[in-house]
């Protein structure tokens, strides 16, 4: 145990303040979203406890068809996208990590070139347009089907599976596809979990491609709706909930609190999985050794 000297006291103090600088703005939004709409003006920017308590903001948000729809859209895109990501990435990683075949070096070189050269926005957009994927979820799910950097990370996980197990399966007459599905995938669960989180967070947070590829608001993921409310400050579609509220309640609604509520809703899945994310993600990031 270290002695409590002035230096350690200062260090603890600094780190505590740093953590507060991150927590307070988020807790303030949380407090705002749970405050009584009539008293929310009393809430100052550094307060972390709601003034009064009301669920009215969440009632309004969850009775808004656009919000509810966008949550399901986000969940669908995240689930389907991540499943496809994992399957394609794992299959390619298996072939590249655990087997030897003619042309392997060429394929890896190809992947490195792809990783380094980014074509930029317009050729991407024109391709999606030419493929007829505008206004289709496929534009989001297919476009980022495999991330080369993540592929390399998964290859490293696969390389850790002991040779003897694969050898035994081969002697028993298992083909590559069988070895991949029956042995490699079950044995690499931590690696797949890490990568699944990488991909899921990417899909959940994606808004830019959805903004340019999806013009139909019914297909928007939550982040795009959030952007509409919070960044563009466009509340026309937000206040379509008059039918569940009395006239006074609608009049009392506070736009800022509704925005805060939307931000909080979009953070919920992340906060639920945060302990798992911390466990796997930090390790995965270090294995990769590069910031993304």
């Amino acid at each position, binding site marked *: 145990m270290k002695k409590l000297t002035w*230096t350690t006291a200062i260090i603890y103090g600094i780190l505590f303040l740093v953590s507060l600088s*991150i927590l307070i703005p988020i807790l303030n939004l949380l407090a705002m979203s749970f405050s009584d709409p009539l008293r929310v003006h009393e809430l100052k920017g550094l307060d972390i406890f709601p003034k009064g308590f009301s669920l009215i903001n969440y009632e309004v948000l969850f009775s808004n068809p656009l919000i509810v729809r966008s949550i399901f859209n986000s969940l669908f895109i995240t689930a389907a996208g991540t499943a496809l990501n994992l399957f394609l990435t794992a299959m390619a990683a298996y072939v590249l990590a655990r087997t030897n075949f003619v042309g392997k070096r060429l394929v890896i070189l190809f992947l490195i070139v792809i990783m380094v050269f980014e074509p930029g926005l317009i*050729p991407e957009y024109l391709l999606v347009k030419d493929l007829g994927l505008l206004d289709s979820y496929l534009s989001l799910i297919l476009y980022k089907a495999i991330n080369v950097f993540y592929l390399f990370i998964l290859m490293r996980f696969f390389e850790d599976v002991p040779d003897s197990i694969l050898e035994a399966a081969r002697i028993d007459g298992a083909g590559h596809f069988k070895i991949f599905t029956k042995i490699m995938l079950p044995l690499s669960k931590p690696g797949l979990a890490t990568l699944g989180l990488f991909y899921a967070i990417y899909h959940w947070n994606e808004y830019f491609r959805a903004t340019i590829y999806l013009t139909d608001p019914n297909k928007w993921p939550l982040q795009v709706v959030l952007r509409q409310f919070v960044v563009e400050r466009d509340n026309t579609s937000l206040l379509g909930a008059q039918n569940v509220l009395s006239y006074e309640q609608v009049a009392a609604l506070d736009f800022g609190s509704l925005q805060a509520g939307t931000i909080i809703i979009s953070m919920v899945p992340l906060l639920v999985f945060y302990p798992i994310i911390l466990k796997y993600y930090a390790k995965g990031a270090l294995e990769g050794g590069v910031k993304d």
Partner: protein
Amino acid sequence: MKEKRLWFQIKRDWVLYAMLLPALVYFSIFHVIPLIGMKLAFQDYRIIGDNVWVGLKHFNVLFSSPAFLDVLKNTIIISSMKIIFFFPVPIILSLIINEVRNGPFRKYVQSVIYLPHFLSWVVITGVWISLLSPVDGGINVIRNFFQLPSLDYMTSKDHIRWVLVISETWRSAGWDSIIYLAAIMKISPGLYEAAKIDGATSLQQMRYITIPELLSTVVTVFILNLGFFMNAGFDQVFNMINDSVISVIDILDTYVYRIGILNGQYAYATAASLFKGVIGVILILSTHFISKKVSGKGVW
């Protein structure tokens, strides 16, 4: 004879090629075709029929356009500000965290400072708009406490670039400190033992052991950052931009988005992003060679 063996191998491994096929098809469609599509920078886009080659026309327009030069200037200023003021923060943070022994406090600090990294820039912009609100945002509450008038940072040309730098720090400093913490963990404990026997204080240990040992990691990360110099933070600017401040924070990527996607000037926008890409590659290659000359180590 040799050719026969090659064919035999390819036939024997057909399952492997079949398993690799989806990935190769995917990369060819979604990565190679857009790369080829960059030739649009030297063409005029036609909705119907073939595009027409126009040589360097778009580049000439680009470099004689004051709008483009302003955007280039903003990109360089914002990137430089981030490198000067943001880059050292994760290093300092990792040195400070390293002074805290493993325990609940360290775990708490690390879980909190990693959090913003996982939030989208839309969410972060929401948090910051609220934090900087001129009515009752946290920063203005503090300012008012010291008898200073409220400021609307998000629409102030004098402050918005600092908002970019500081919100970037808020989001990434914690997460980026991981890589330096990992490098610190790899330093041989023997060095510290020896220093302790010689009576070095923890501050001296930091100065004479941790910082010098950390230097090669710092150089590598710095070089990687330089490679992304022209990016300047698209997601961030895209969300924080508004009419009052567009003249000082419009960067190359937001410019390409506006003239390309919103105004439909595909060819011109492609030329702008090709220019950006070429500068990026030159930066990566040159810093790589400088690093190799100076420290004997390159990026690859």
